[in-house]
């Protein structure tokens, strides 16, 4: 029992090692400097979204609106910059829009008692439509000379800026989850909501905080996204819901709540992106990449079900 548990616990590291080592030996393109740089510059968005999604998964919810928040946020950011807003103000407004959607999601779940699946599904539609309305359905380019694209391609001390940003969020988020009462309450609410309530934990506040953080992280991802494509794209981010959930679950965040870490979610995001990258290098049809992604989600979900069924008390 103990040894199989250990293997299941380490499975993700083994998978990561295989995903790096095998193509690394077989394919010189994979281990090229360009590919590595390109890879690091492509994963910031998913890293940030997977962490945001994890807060909601921890309370046994799900956030289907993150992809739409990324699209809407990128449009808001580009439109405000075009309107002549200073960069800091446009970024602040974008972050506020994501935070606002998150709070509305949380309020819908907390006050109206609608399952998060439905609330966030509704906001997915609302946010996509809002982005389309603002942009008139077209991409909005960033004003020339904007500093924003630096966020996607720039470096600090030799590391890509977006990775440093993700790392900062990882450290802050992990600290909050481990050492702040509200962080532990997310685990408690996801583990046993009724017990948490009877212990004096404010379930409503934990719910609100989880969704607000997810919306906020999605808006940060929106800023990185706009920087990366040098525009606001109202129809971007379509696959990001699935990918963020997949990354978190691959990283050991339980779909049933109460278990998981941000580090795990980041690991899942890296593994997911690696697999995508490898398939890319081998010129696999991108549609097949999506199928592979779907299969990975099923496998991760299966491992999740198997390990969680062993852990329940009764």
């Amino acid at each position: 029992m103990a040894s199989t548990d250990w293997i299941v616990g380490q499975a993700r590291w083994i998978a990561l090692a295989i995903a790096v080592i095998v193509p690394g030996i077989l394919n010189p393109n994979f281990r090229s400097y360009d590919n590595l740089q390109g890879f690091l510059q492509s994963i910031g968005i998913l890293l940030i979204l997977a962490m945001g999604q994890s807060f909601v998964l921890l309370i046994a919810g799900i956030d289907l609106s993150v992809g739409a928040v990324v699209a809407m946020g990128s449009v808001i950011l580009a439109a405000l910059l075009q309107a002549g807003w200073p960069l800091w103000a446009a970024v602040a407004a974008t972050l506020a829009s994501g935070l606002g959607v998150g709070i509305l999601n949380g309020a819908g779940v907390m006050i109206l008692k609608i399952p998060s699946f439905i609330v966030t599904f509704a906001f997915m539609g609302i946010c996509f439509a809002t982005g389309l309305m603002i942009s008139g359905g077209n991409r909005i380019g960033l004003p020339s000379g904007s500093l924003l694209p630096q966020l996607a391609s720039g470096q600090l001390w030799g590391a890509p800026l977006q990775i440093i940003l993700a790392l900062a969020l990882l450290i802050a988020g992990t600290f909050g989850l481990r050492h702040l009462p509200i962080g532990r309450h997310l685990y408690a609410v996801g583990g046993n909501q009724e017990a948490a309530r009877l212990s004096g934990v404010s379930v409503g506040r934990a719910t609100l905080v989880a969704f607000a953080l997810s919306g906020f992280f999605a808006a940060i991802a929106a800023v990185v996204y706009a920087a990366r494509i040098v525009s606001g794209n109202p129809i971007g981010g379509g696959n990001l819901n699935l990918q963020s959930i997949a990354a978190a679950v691959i990283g050991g965040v339980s779909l049933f709540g109460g278990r998981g870490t941000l580090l795990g979610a980041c690991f899942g995001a890296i593994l997911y992106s690696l697999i995508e990258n490898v398939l890319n290098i081998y010129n696999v049809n991108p549609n097949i990449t999506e199928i592979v992604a779907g299969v990975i989600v099923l496998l991760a979900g299966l491992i999740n079900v198997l390990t969680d069924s062993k852990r329940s008390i009764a």
Partner: protein
Amino acid sequence: MSGADESMRSEAHPHAAPLLQVENIEKRFWGITALAGVSFDLRAGEVHCLCGENGAGKSTLIKIMAGSVSPDAGAIMLDGSTIKLSSPHEGLQRGIGVVYQELELIPNLSIMENLSLGREPRTALGTIDWREVRRRGEAVLDQMRVSLSVDRPVSSLTIAQAQLVAIAKILALKPRILVLDEPTAALSGGELATLFTLIDNLKASDVGIIYISHRLDEIFRLGDRVTVLRDGKAVTTKHVSEISEDQLIQWMVGRKTEQRFPDLPPVDNSEVILSVRGLATATLRDVSFDLRKGEILGCTGLAGCGHDALARALIGLEPVLSGEIFVEGRKVERRSPRASQALGLGLVPEDRKGQGLVIGASIADNASYSVLARYTRFGVVNARSLMDLVRRYHKSLQIRSATLDQPASTLSGGNQQKVVLARVMSTDPDILVLDEPTRGIDVGAKAEIYQLIVDLVRERRAVLLISSEMAEVMALSHRLIVLSEGRQTATLAPPYSDTEILAKALPASEGAMTAAAGASVGSAPSP
């Protein structure tokens, strides 16, 4: 309050004023009266037991005292002054701590985190003060003399250990009033001794304890006074020392209990219908027995001894590592709940609400799930003949409900159990595996279930009666097997002696000691 009552109480605790007092409490739910003017009081340093059949109003009363339900009428007084409780949290702040039957713990958090949940000590920076969390956790476990590492996640504990942690969680709040709702349902041996010692210590430090249990021996062992509730009214409040077990039962059921156990019909040397040889699972080892038609084979042991694993393995819910199972002489190859049903095996599971019933569905639906296919022609259920069947069992099992459309969740525990039994009986099984069939149900309903079990064997069905209530298996078993730490330690025939069964049931390491002496918390049975 009559004068006689007053004098009676002051005898026991001459200096004690009532700590908590409720007067003429009334509560109705959707027009159904749950409490019809109940008065009750608790003094510092006493154990006041609350007895009554399920549905008598015990849970409503403690929920009102805890603050999670507000009464329609009546007053709650703490230290003589009237209070209003609007939430369980407020109740806790005023020193009223309730340990509910359902374990209120978070599985993936450690013991110490559970013990501080919702009131985490903070450092000056607002972060959790882990050193204080640990100190608090260790202090309360020490006070309870429970030796568990506070770092262990609750999900790694046995149910009995988790029950002790649930009590610790409330104790950590230093309540002046402690309500224990069936705390011993999952405990045995060492854990029981730990709990009883704890209760004695709490009494000595002037905590008032309200103790709810269906185990009458505990009431007589621990209680100072006992209040009996029946149909939402307080029937009587007495000193435990002044009454007998029979009187108590009579007050609870409100009718003369003729005998607690029905007579067993004799078993002729009829054919063996179920035969188990060398059965081993993750928690069981080398279990072998024969079960004959018309026979009740009892199976008992302490909590965690593996008797639930036996039921699950027989029915195909738990993988069998080695050993063989024969039904009517044929070896069972494929085991699953469906295959078992085809073989004539029916299980009444231990966890009535979780496994036995679809709790929100109606009585009729619940009773008919297992035979829907049999009553289906061309893909359509023949509702009329199905309802005839349901009505037949509703009547023969004496399920007490207003209608058949009522959700199972509205029934008392005993009636819920009868609905499960009706569903299992509808498949016309030759062998019934009953796993803790009377757990958490009241005395009157127990007697009815016992009669039903005996009726089953009169119909030449075979029953495997798995129960941790020793009196029950002793009275109802033609033969008896005892499990200890997953091993079959004895196969006994009547007359049984409870000391012999207990000796066989105690884990080998504890066997030398008496049951009560084991003060440390028993560890999980090694696989």
